[in-house]
């Protein structure tokens, strides 16, 4: 009798909740009449909260299942919780947005659930095949979500651009996995790491080439320079809550996967990848922040700013230390809260049929709605890294980690680009505080949107004032 895999149900519980909930909701949604699709969204929210509850119970749990291809440890649990929080807030922000834009369909919440399931898998994967499949899963959901406002040509364009660049990136990823398998005879990160020191000349070259292709494939998904070109167009064309979700959750999951590949699978080749990654991080910081500086469209500005933030996120794997990993988790949490809050303000000001999100529409916001202006200010100040917000602690922790790892040039660059970033964030805030330039656009303040925005803003402040509890968690 052949031994069958022993499945550790504690570890897979979270995934079971998400995927089980998603499939059940898919069928349940068929029975929900067209005008009441908000019910589906709230049910999906319940599923996400249930999964998050399992995640909280996973605190401190470490283990592996499915032959070591799926792992759980505090880092994975923490990043998973960030993804779940992003999904929950995105659903809250989207609930009324979709109806207002007449694109309300039950599949939205179901796809977000499948997407966040893919992200959790990508974070927990310890095997390249599982990583590839979970990346495919989350990519497919995001392609469809980007095109969710389909009759809208911009949304269609966003979906198509994302699909084509994503398919191209997947090619790199598969090729990289094949090369690594050819060199080491395995796709499991731990086995690859064990095979590493025994690799002689040509095989070593092969594994290194595979790793580089893998980094290219993941770099596309995390929009690292020079693989970032799709980001502004896709964020700009996708429905705003989808752009918010993509910009935070998929980035968190891909960064976690990249960290695992580099540190667990190829820790031994660090001398090779660390300088390359440092150059990529520098380019990402510069291109993202300088690109954001010249944007007049707020959504595109946030897209470029998210590219710049990805450069900071790379400091985590570059530092390759516990300090760097802790900083990465904290940075992801702070960035998620701030970016979602910023997008929430845009959602509150976006009526149906708006095509261009010009900066002039934010002018005079302070006179019309101090609350929205406050949320926007908190979000942008946190993204810029101004104390006492979460962004400040996050940037500080990251800079500290790379300083300790011996990259003073990156520290200088991080500070300089943060100053550039502060310039364009402040420009938006000054516009909001100044006089109105256009006719006052309508504002929307339904309770799910307000709740989502308030939770994100609260997270920025709490993480900024009491960072200890999150750091102690991971």
């Amino acid at each position, binding site marked *: 009798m*052949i*031994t*069958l*895999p022993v499945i550790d149900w504690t570890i897979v519980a979270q995934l079971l909740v998400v*995927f089980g909930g998603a*499939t059940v909701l*898919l069928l349940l949604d068929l029975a929900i009449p067209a005008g009441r699709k908000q019910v589906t969204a709230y049910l999906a929210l319940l599923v996400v909260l249930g999964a998050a509850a399992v995640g909280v119970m996973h605190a401190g749990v470490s283990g592996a299942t*499915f*032959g070591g*291809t*799926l792992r759980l440890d505090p880092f994975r649990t923490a990043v998973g919780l960030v993804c779940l929080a992003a999904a929950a807030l995105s659903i809250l922000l989207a609930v009324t947005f979709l109806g207002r834009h007449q694109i309300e*369909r039950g*599949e939205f919440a*179901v*796809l977000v659930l*499948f997407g966040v*399931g893919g992200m959790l*898998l990508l974070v927990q994967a310890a095997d390249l*095949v*599982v990583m590839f*499949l*979970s990346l*495919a*899963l989350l990519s*497919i*959901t995001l*392609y*469809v979500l980007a*095109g*969710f406002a*389909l*009759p809208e040509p911009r949304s269609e364009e966003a*979906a198509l651009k994302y699909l084509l660049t994503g398919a191209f990136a997947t090619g790199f990823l598969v090729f990289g996995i094949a090369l690594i398998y*050819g060199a080491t005879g395995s796709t499991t990160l731990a086995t690859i790491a064990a095979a590493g020191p025994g690799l002689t000349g*040509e*095989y070593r*070259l*092969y594994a290194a*080439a595979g790793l580089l292709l893998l980094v290219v494939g993941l770099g596309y998904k995390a929009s690292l320079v020079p693989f970032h070109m799709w980001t502004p167009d896709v964020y700009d064309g996708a429905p705003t809550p989808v752009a918010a979700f993509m910009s935070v959750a998929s980035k968190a999951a891909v960064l976690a996967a990249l960290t695992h590949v580099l540190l667990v699978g190829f820790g031994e080749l660090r001398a090779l990848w660390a300088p390359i990654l440092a150059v990529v991080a520098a380019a990402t910081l510069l291109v993202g922040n300088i690109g954001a500086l010249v944007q007049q469209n707020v959504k595109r500005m946030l897209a470029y700013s998210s590219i710049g933030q990805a450069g900071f996120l790379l400091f985590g794997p570059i530092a390759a230390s516990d300090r760097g990993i802790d900083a990465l988790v904290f940075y992801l949490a702070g960035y998620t809260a701030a970016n979602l809050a910023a997008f929430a303000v845009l959602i509150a000001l976006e009526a149906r049929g708006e095509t261009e999100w010009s900066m002039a529409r934010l002018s005079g916001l302070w006179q019309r709605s101090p609350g929205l202006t406050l949320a926007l200010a908190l979000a942008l100040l946190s993204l810029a890294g101004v104390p006492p917000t979460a962004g400040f602690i996050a940037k500080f922790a990251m800079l500290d980690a790379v300083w300790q790892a011996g990259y003073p040039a990156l520290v200088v660059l991080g500070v300089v680009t943060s100053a550039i970033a502060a310039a364009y964030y402040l420009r938006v805030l000054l516009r909001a505080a100044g006089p109105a330039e256009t006719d006052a656009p309508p504002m929307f303040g339904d309770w799910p949107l307000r709740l989502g925005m308030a939770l994100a803003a609260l997270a920025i402040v709490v993480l900024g004032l009491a960072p200890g509890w999150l750091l102690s968690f991971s």
Partner: protein
Amino acid sequence: MVTVIFIAIASLIIASAVLVVISREIVRAALWLIATFFAVGALYLLLEAEFIGVAQVLVYVGAVSILILFAIMLTRQHERHEPAWRAGPWWIALAGVIGLAAVLITTIGAVPWRLTDDDLPVSRAPQLGTALMREYLLPFQLAAIVLLVALIGAVVIAMEERRRRTPTLADDIAAQRGAADRAEDGTP
């Protein structure tokens, strides 16, 4: 003998793949792509991976190619167009391809491949079946979820497409007949 067969199959793959890229008509490009898939299936047979070869023919030649052709027939493009490789600076792409090929050929040539006379663990159907149920159980179940999501995505996008449906052949003919009738009425 095996080398001769390999060279025949390989040149078939390369020739049809090149034709995919340079065909003027997108339908022809798709048909050459099917030929490429088929030849790759033959390569698997040459490697004595029968199941993979049959699966290649069944899935790629039999199903994916149909999907590609239907997707082309869904588009509205009625006229001939320059193939994509002439639209941009194609010599850059050509240089990139040649560079990549040079790197790959030299690297693959440099590696002393570990050859084995034994069956590979997953080259035959029974081994593949047990592997799917054991080491690859998680990817296997994950594949089902990926397929499900692809189906949902297609329904979400295609149903929207249907709501703002563009005329089909029957509608076109009806419209043309109508126009012709009106023209006849107008010029007695």
